[in-house]
């Protein structure tokens, strides 16, 4: 796996969870890629770090992943199933096992490390963010003039100037490349003044300014003056869509959304104090629910939108503000307006290093240096066994990167054919000691973490004070508690001194709890007999100016931890055996692809289709925009699905009931004309139920045979070219029944569909005059090149406003379309031989509503299934064990549906590879003797887990409980406890904190 950005991490995790070994290689010092630099992400405007951090630490923990940071690929030999890759690792000069991430080296020798984005005027650091993985610094030795002093300054003795780096070969079955893309550098565009005007920034730089971990710690300030700006402008399509010097021909796909996000976050924070304006060519909010996000920006946040490409950004000498020149739709005059900051929405570009990578792997690339993919499978390259994902495959946003990452994992995992190497088995864990009923004997182990803790407070004094607490049997200072020697010592002490509860005084439980849980488990204690006192991150690091008060606080935190741990008791982690069959609902291309990918890996699949035949909407299509033959593709897919010995196809099957929990579901269905009832047991459920073509009663659809949908138009072109040859005028109308009040979202596929049909009409009838009446042309990514091609070939694209739509008049066999032409400033009438309406897709209302009820799954307001996390888990549904693929998720192209289908297969494999699912121990537990069955927990739970059972008491299924504890906090009978965070543990902390005051 080359590239450990968000996508690379996802691929690696998917493969590792499916029990495949992964070498994860990245050039950078720490993994995480571009997303770690963002402030917030659309469309939820969540904090990025909060959503990303769990993935980062997970990848480090996975035993199947070996992470190689600061490493580059030098060469590759061999073929699919048997590659040899040569790697070279740069020296970090820091021993990862010893570095505690304390930052002492950075404090004393800030110049030894460099950090890129230009706006970071803090001391340069390579630890860009506190959740960095690996949690360690790196040194640039060439910038250091006193190496001996640098080595000396490290309290952990982790700096090693003699490190040489390393090179070596690894053998692998398949290769996934996700090195990411760079961003366009606008320095060359002098009319924007980026290179000499500090207040003109790129969107990533703006993002860093907004970020709490950025150079201004989240304060929005003009770089030139340090004052808060009053007016900020965004200019879209910088370096994209082929109009400026050095620009790429494609659309970068994500910039409209991130400009909206930045403008909204800005408005949210500064309200009326700031004015935000976006200058755009087409607003391309084509993703799931993105159009609503756009509407919110406009209507709720008051972001101003101007349809224009600004001519210049100028600043007169000495002037405080910049002058932006532009024209608008309704005027040919040059307008000027003043702004304090200008943000350039710079698009994606393949960087030189990445281009080199493509040549190292000998991949065929297109004119824009992206790898060519040979067919409908987006993650394949010209070289079998090498797959791509993320922005290296083509410009895209995070959710699509995540989908491709999983799809790449699916493909790469299939190639791993070598028999599993016998692993060095960890020695079996000792049985857990039974501590119930024993007097608590607490062992308190306090780290000095080098100078980090020991430099502010005297650990020996602290140990002395803590040793006097009730229940404490042993209290010791342990130096670097997480070092190998200390861990061994702690384990020995627990065993020899018969310790039955443990408190660690040191760093944060967020980073180290699992490590010490594992340790005490090895020492024969249940993992949950542990408490942490965070005396580093939350005491010595922040109270170094008050050492006396710091040691008092450290003592208080330790007292609280000891009080709570005395009340702790062993908890059992829940696990469930897994049924390894898979149910796929929906027999379109997505459902069939998921079924085949899973069956190919040896698992039984039931493919249930409501209709009588397989193929879905794709069976009605002929060719893709890129020219792939869909008909033969679909036929081949159906044939392979029907022939696969592990796939049982059930047509005419309607799901009627469903029970069970992840890993062991039971679903009932009625099959065939006799409605014969059948029940299937399975561990994973995949929904690929698709969408249906919309057919709104608009523009005379159905009133004249000349007015057709794009789907019908496509059939006419391919089945009756002689009719098409007779046409003079064809008018296409976009957004018919989409982006309206009733159906606010964009159907995503229609713009490329119109371009495709226009080009295909011109193939059979080059003389035809084609008018495309659109609101925003949303030919994202490489589709833009076909949009350009259509314009070159003379297709006339005319923009219309929603409040002034075209009119279609039908009289006898005449159809006249009237529209307002903005440039000519007059109404134009066209007598059309054919009117093609882009009617898009809608969710199949009744059937998806019924399925949502049966499976208890949420849907969006417009009826599509709602994923668990729109950003990071785009194909996982909120109920574990459920996944969604294809247009059941949202409208998308065939290629995109197939990618999602493979992503789902990969996600499913992560469950199927295991024998049991571990559900953790932090779940809510009901004491039925206290329960008043009042329903308050049922109503309070955000996940609808509690229910009143047949005995009349609340029951909470630990397999479905998310462990938030809201039910426990609201239960009026005090009948619910959240395990590990029980009332007596919380109260013990409060008691202990104030124990002195009472005594």
């Amino acid at each position: 796996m080359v590239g450990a950005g968000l996508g690379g991490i996802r691929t690696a995790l998917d493969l590792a969870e499916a029990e495949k070994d992964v070498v994860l290689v990245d050039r950078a010092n720490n993994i995480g890629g571009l997303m770690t630099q963002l402030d917030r992400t659309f469309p939820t405007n969540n904090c990025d770090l909060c959503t990303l951090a769990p993935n980062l630490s997970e990848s480090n923990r996975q035993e199947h992943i070996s992470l190689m940071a600061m490493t580059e690929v030098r060469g590759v030999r061999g073929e699919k199933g048997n590659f040899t890759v040569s790697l070279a690792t740069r020296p970090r000069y820091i021993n990862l096992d010893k570095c505690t991430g304390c930052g002492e080296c950075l404090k004393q020798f800030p110049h030894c490390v460099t950090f890129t984005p230009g706006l970071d005027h803090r001391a340069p650091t390579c630890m860009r963010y506190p959740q960095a993985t690996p949690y360690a610094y790196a040194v640039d030795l060439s910038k250091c003039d006193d190496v001996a002093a640098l080595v000396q300054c490290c309290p952990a003795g982790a700096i090693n100037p003699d490190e040489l780096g390393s090179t070596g070969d690894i053998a692998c079955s398949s290769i996934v490349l996700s090195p990411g893309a760079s961003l366009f550098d606008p320095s060359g565009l002098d009319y924007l003044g980026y290179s000499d005007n500090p207040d003109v920034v790129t969107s990533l730089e703006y993002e860093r300014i907004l970020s709490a971990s950025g150079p201004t710690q989240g304060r929005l300030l003009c770089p030139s003056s340090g004052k808060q700006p009053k007016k900020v402008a965004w200019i879209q399509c910088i370096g994209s869509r082929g109009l400026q010097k050095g620009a790429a021909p494609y659309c970068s796909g994500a910039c409209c959304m991130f400009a909206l996000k930045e403008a909204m976050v800005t408005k949210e924070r500064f309200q009326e104090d700031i004015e935000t304006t976006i200058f755009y060519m087409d607003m391309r909010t084509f993703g799931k629910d993105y159009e609503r996000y756009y509407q919110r920006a406009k209507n709720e946040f008051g972001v101003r939108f101007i349809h224009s490409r600004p001519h210049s950004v100028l600043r007169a000498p000495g002037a405080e503000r910049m002058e932006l020149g532009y024209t608008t739709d309704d005027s040919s005059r040059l307008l000027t307006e003043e702004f304090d900051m200008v943000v350039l929405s710079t698009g994606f570009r393949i960087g030189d290093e990445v281009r080199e990578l493509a040549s190292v792997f000998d991949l065929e690339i297109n004119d824009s240096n992206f790898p060519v993919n040979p067919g409908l499978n987006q993650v394949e390259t010209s070289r079998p066994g090498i797959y791509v994902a993320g922005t290296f495959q083509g410009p895209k946003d995070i959710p699509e990167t995540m989908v491709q990452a999983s799809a790449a994992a699916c493909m790469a995992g299939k190639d791993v054919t070598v028999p599993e190497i016998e692993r060095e088995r960890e020695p079996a864990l000792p049985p857990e000691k039974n501590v119930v009923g024993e007097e608590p004997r607490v062992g308190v182990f306090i780290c000095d973490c080098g100078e980090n803790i020991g430099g502010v407070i005297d650990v020996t004094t602290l140990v002395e004070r803590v040793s006097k607490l009730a229940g404490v049997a042993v209290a010791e200072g342990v130096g670097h508690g997480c070092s190998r020697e200390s861990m061994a010592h702690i384990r020995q002490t627990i065993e020899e001194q018969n310790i039955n509860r443990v408190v660690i005084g040191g760093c944060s439980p967020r980073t180290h709890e699992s490590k010490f849980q594992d340790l005490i488990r090895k020492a024969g204690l249940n993992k949950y007999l542990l408490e942490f006192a965070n005396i580093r991150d939350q005491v010595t690091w922040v109270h170094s100016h008050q050492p006396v008060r710091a040691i008092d606080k450290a003592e208080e935190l330790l007292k609280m931890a000891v009080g709570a741990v005395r009340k702790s008791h062993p908890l059992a982690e829940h696990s469930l055996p897994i049924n390894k069959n898979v149910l796929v609902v929906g027999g379109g291309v997505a459902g069939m692809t998921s079924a085949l990918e899973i069956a190919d890996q040896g698992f039984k699949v039931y493919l249930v289709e409501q209709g009588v035949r397989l193929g879905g909407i794709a069976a009605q299509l002929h060719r893709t925009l890129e020219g792939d033959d869909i008909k033969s593709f679909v036929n081949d897919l159906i044939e392979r699905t029907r022939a696969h010995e592990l796939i049982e196809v059930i047509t005419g099957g309607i799901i009627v009931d469903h029970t069970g929990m992840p890993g062991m579901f039971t679903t009932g269905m009625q099959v065939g004309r006799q409605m014969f009832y059948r029940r299937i047991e399975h561990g994973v459920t995949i929904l690929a139920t698709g969408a249906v073509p919309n057919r709104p009663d608009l523009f005379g659809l159905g009133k004249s045979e000349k007015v057709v949908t794009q789907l019908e138009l496509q059939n006419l072109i391919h089945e009756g070219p002689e009719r098409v040859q007779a046409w003079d005028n064809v008018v296409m109308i976009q957004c018919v029944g989409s982006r309206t009040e009733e159906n606010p979202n964009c159907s995503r596929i229609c713009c490329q569909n119109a371009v495709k049909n226009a080009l295909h009409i011109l193939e059979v009838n080059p003389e035809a005059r084609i008018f495309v009446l659109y609101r925003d042309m949303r030919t994202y990514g490489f589709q833009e090149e076909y949009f350009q091609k259509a314009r070159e070939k003379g297709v006339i694209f005319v923009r219309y406003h929603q409040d002034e739509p075209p009119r279609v008049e039908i009289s006898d066999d005449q159809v006249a379309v009237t529209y307002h032409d903005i440039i000519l400033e007059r109404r134009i009438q066209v007598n059309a031989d054919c009117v093609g309406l882009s009617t898009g897709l809608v969710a199949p209302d009744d059937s998806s509503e019924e399925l949502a009820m049966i499976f208890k799954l949420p849907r969006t307001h417009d009826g599509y299934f709602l994923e668990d996390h729109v950003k990071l888990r785009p194909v996982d549904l909120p109920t574990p064990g459920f996944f969604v693929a294809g247009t059941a998720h949202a409208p998308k192209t065939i290629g995109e549906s197939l990618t999602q289908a493979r992503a789902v297969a990969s996600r499913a494999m992560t469950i199927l590879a295991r024998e049991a699912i571990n559900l953790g121990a932090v779940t809510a537990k009901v004491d039925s003797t206290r329960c008043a069955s009042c329903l308050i927990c049922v109503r309070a739970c955000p996940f609808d887990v509690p229910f009143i059972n047949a005995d009349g008491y609340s029951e909470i299924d630990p397999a479905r409980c998310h462990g938030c504890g809201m039910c426990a906090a609201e239960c009026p009978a005090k009948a619910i406890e959240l395990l590990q965070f029980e009332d007596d543990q919380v109260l013990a902390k409060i008691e202990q904190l104030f124990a002195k005051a009472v005594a």
Partner: protein
Amino acid sequence: MEHFEPVIVAFCCHYCAYTAADMAGSQRLVYPANVKIIRVPCSGKVDSLHIAKAFEKGADGVYVAGCLDGDCHFKNGNDKAARKVAHMRGYLEEIGIEPERLEMVKMSAGMGERFARVATEMTEKIRKLGPSPIKAAAA
């Protein structure tokens, strides 16, 4: 009250506020040592009873820190917490304790700076208010 050092209990949700506190640490942002954190999985887990007990046992101030609006990892725990805090402020007033001693704050995991600022401001505010009436009477 010459040298009054208030004791403030902060119930912090694991995903956002507690992480923000760690972030303040890694950025070495200095704030007063008066704030003691109790970690909870979600701010919605904070029980009215725990808030009451903290004051009863001698806290001069209490705050619940959760995720930003719409960011709760458990959908709406932060909203529930905010309602609970508002309710308990009324109760404190009834008891005769200044309701300003109890606050709800929201922050994202990346906001180390905000965590430090909230801790400082809360400490300053409580310092001005003086010891809680309960502690004052015991002294």
